[in-house]
């Protein structure tokens, strides 16, 4: 064989190999079949009705409401680490247009102007106009106490008719004063934009806002459609694609999204393991830990702004004593709770501000030192300790409440405090007890609607906040939080300085005994890709973008 023929032979082999590789690659692509399939997620419970503005059932509603994605704005989680799972979005700088095409803020801070996206249609074929937006936002403010709170208390929207139509594709939202949450409210699922033309067809004289129809049907500009036939209240709902959806280019291959109510967490886990479903929500931490070893399931622990916390009521003079509060905090071994209860899906709290915010310059003040705790108890005049009632509920912070309470009671016993655990099964009763301040100590979950430290610091601990049912009072604290709420996005240095000072105030007299900075574990099928994590909407997935291989 001469040189030329050798070259030809090598070339032929190379060509054959290339063809082989190409064929193999084609076969691989064919194997990753992306033909239309249902995306299925199992949640503990499906809401009883679908009008999220009128009756928002908390987390239960969020499993559906967030998928409807008919809001003016969204978080641009694609810009964030691991689709938003690995990095907390900023409430001022990480927003992106959704049904709005763009927005601008009046230099005097008197209004926000939204330019609406053109050509956006509902499944009924009606194009979105400023009339739809005003009708929907007005409806939301009328129907939802949460939206009224967010708009008029947490923010400072003009009380009288804040939404103005400028032209068919422009609206203005009028403000009395700017705050850091002015814009972020427009990504909130309850502020969804309805196809008012269609909804009004189902309104009656007695029911002008079509509450009855919207309780069972959807009419919006999001990616999905829900009809009465596909909705079994409390049990399941099947969302089918909106054929006119404006962002069809980013659509995955889900030809429907089925949200199943599966109350038993063990069953949700088994369904996921068996491949029957693609996503299982709200499993106990042990289940997540077990699922980590699975070949077919991906378990991630996403960033979160939520914290498990121990509320101590200032109405009880023993618990109002700063030395006792410090002692209780020191008696708690948070590492043991993080490992024993949270199975590593939570971190011990070290300051008054959740670690996932990544605020620099905070001095960790939360520690575990039983000896020091005992001394503080003696110094406070309680060397023998005392008895308290520790009120808990599996509805908040979750199914791990009882286990966590047992850990806490055991730790408090070491400094002479006998904590009698009082279990409240009903979520509404527990909530009522919290708001009325009817407890000595309460195991609670701080779960901010918007992940910004000032939201929690204001809502939970500010002297005038209705959620400060434990009656923490500190004038300087209130002053700083109020200032922080009105900072501009560019005032980064001042923001950090305020947070550092707030943390120091909380170290001296802890408003709450922060326990664990929780993460949000998610368990999902490896057959599905394109997950986005919308933290501010309760840590849900965005199913319409998912791609699922057969």
């Amino acid at each position: 064989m001469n040189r030329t023929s050798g070259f030809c032979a090598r070339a032929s082999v190379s060509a054959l190999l290339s063809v082989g590789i190409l064929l193999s690659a084609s076969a691989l692509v064919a194997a990753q079949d992306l033909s239309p399939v249902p995306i299925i997620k199992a949640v503990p419970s499906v809401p009883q009705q679908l009008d999220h503005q009128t009756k928002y059932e908390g987390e239960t509603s969020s499993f559906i409401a967030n998928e409807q994605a008919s809001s003016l704005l969204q978080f641009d989680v694609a810009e964030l680490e691991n689709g938003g799972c690995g990095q907390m979005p900023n409430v001022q700088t990480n927003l992106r247009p959704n049904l709005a095409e763009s927005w601008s803020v009046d230099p005097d801070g008197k209004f926000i102007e939204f330019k609406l996206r053109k050509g956006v249609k509902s499944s009924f074929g009606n194009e979105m106009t400023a009339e739809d937006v005003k009708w929907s936002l007005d409806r939301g403010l009328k129907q939802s106490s949460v939206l009224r709170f967010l708009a008029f208390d947490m923010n400072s929207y003009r009380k009288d008719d804040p939404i103005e139509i400028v032209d068919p594709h422009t609206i203005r939202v009028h403000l009395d004063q700017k705050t850091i949450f002015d814009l972020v409210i427009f990504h909130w699922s309850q502020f969804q934009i309805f196809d008012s033309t269609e909804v009004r067809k189902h309104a009656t004289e007695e029911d002008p806002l079509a509450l009855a129809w919207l309780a069972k049907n959807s009419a919006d500009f999001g990616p999905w459609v829900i009809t009465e036939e596909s909705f079994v209240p409390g049990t399941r709902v099947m969302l089918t694609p909106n054929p006119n959806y404006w962002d069809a280019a980013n659509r995955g291959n889900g030809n429907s999204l089925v949200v199943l109510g599966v109350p038993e967490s063990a069953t949700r886990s088994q369904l996921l393991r068996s491949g029957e479903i693609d996503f299982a929500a709200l499993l106990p931490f042990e289940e997540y830990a077990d699922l980590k070893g699975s070949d077919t399931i991906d378990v991630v622990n996403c960033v979160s702004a939520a914290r498990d916390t121990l509320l101590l009521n200032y109405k009880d003079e023993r618990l109002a004593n700063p030395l006792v509060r410090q002692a209780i905090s020191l008696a708690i071994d948070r590492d043991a709770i993080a490992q024993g209860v949270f199975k590593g899906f939570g971190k011990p709290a070290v300051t008054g501000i959740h670690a996932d915010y990544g605020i620099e310059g905070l001095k960790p003040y939360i520690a575990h030192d039983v000896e020091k705790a005992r001394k503080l108890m003696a110094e406070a005049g309680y060397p023998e300790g005392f008895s308290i009632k520790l009120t808990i509920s599996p509805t908040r912070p979750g199914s791990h409440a009882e286990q966590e309470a047992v850990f806490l009671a055991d730790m408090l016993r070491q400094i002479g405090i006998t904590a009698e655990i009082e279990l409240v099964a009903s979520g509404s009763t527990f909530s009522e007890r919290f708001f009325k301040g009817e407890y000595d100590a309460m195991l609670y979950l701080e779960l901010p609607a918007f992940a910004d430290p000032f939201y929690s610091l204001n809502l939970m601990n500010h002297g005038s906040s209705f959620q400060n049912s434990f009656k923490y009072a500190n004038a300087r604290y209130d002053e700083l939080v109020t200032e922080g709420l009105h900072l501009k996005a560019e005032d980064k240095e001042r923001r950090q300085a305020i947070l550092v000072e707030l943390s120091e105030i909380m170290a001296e007299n802890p408003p709450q005994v922060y326990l664990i900075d929780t993460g949000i574990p998610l368990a999902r099928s490896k057959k599905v890709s394109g997950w986005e994590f919308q933290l501010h909407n309760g840590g849900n997935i965005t199913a319409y973008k998912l791609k699922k291989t057969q």
Partner: protein
Amino acid sequence: MTSPATGRDTGPADAAREALAPPAPHRGRAFRGMVAKRLAFIPLALFAVITISFLLVSIMPGDPALAILGSTASEREVAKVRGELGLDRSLSERYITYVGDVLQGDFGRSFFTGQPIRDEIVKYLPASIELVVMALAVASLVGITIGTAAGYFRGRAPDRTVRVAIAGLEAIPGFLAGLLLIFFLFFLWRLAPPPTGRLGIIDVYPPPVTRFLLVDLILAGDWNGLRSALHRSMLPVLTLALGAIPLFAKITRTTVGNAMGSKQIQYARACGLSEWRVVQYALLQARTPILTYTAMLFGAMVGGSAIIETIFSWQGLGQWGLKAIVALDIPAIQGFVIVTGLFTMLVYLVLDLVVAALDPRIRHG
């Protein structure tokens, strides 16, 4: 022994009964009197159920207005909703209005879905009835069979085996049995479908004609759907049946066991009847207690299988009622209590009539 009139076998007890029975017109009068008495009792009992449901719910802790509005509502908003719900009126005033509405068939509207409670009950009750009927059919078949075997072989190996099985079944709570069945039959061995409702995850439900899914599937000619629904009924029916099997087995074992030593059975054997026929006669004596327990279980299970319905996403009345209780949906809770109470009363009425028709001793007091 053969009856000359019917040509069929009759037992010695039946022969004696026939001889002692009063003449036919008197029998009819007595039966009608008993029916009238039972029917007259219903309104009184219903009134008691309405009152109890109203009072029980009224003293439940928690403020429904706060549960509806959520934590962010102002005091003024809470007060407004309390007014709309009528919670600002006195207990007696609310009671009178409530009784008046219920007597007109108006149970109010759900605080959360806004739907009329009557419609919700009509929607969910048939699923529970289907579940209970299937479960009782399985439980009675299995329970009576093994109970008869145990009674017939009393004190011997089959009896001991049945008693051990009964004790085992009694020791397992229904919800745990359900979870274990799901784990083994669905998750490990894949013999059963997933516990995700009455039809497949993406199956379409038939148009609701009778609201009984199995019947509606037949009416719609959806045989695949029917097969799927029956397949998916397997685990919940088995779970509910497991709790009822011991009861059927025990009552049958005791009655059949006693009957086997009775004089009637000795006489039947002396007459040369086959053992199979002898067992049939013994079993006949068990029919009244079995019917009584069936009716009691039926009444109790329709509202009481909430946990099992929830585990299997059955969408029945129990699951609906449980959700209402957790959410503090007062009209729904009251409707649930009244309907399950009324249902139990009606079942007992039918039971009384059937038992009276079967047993003249009861008919004549």
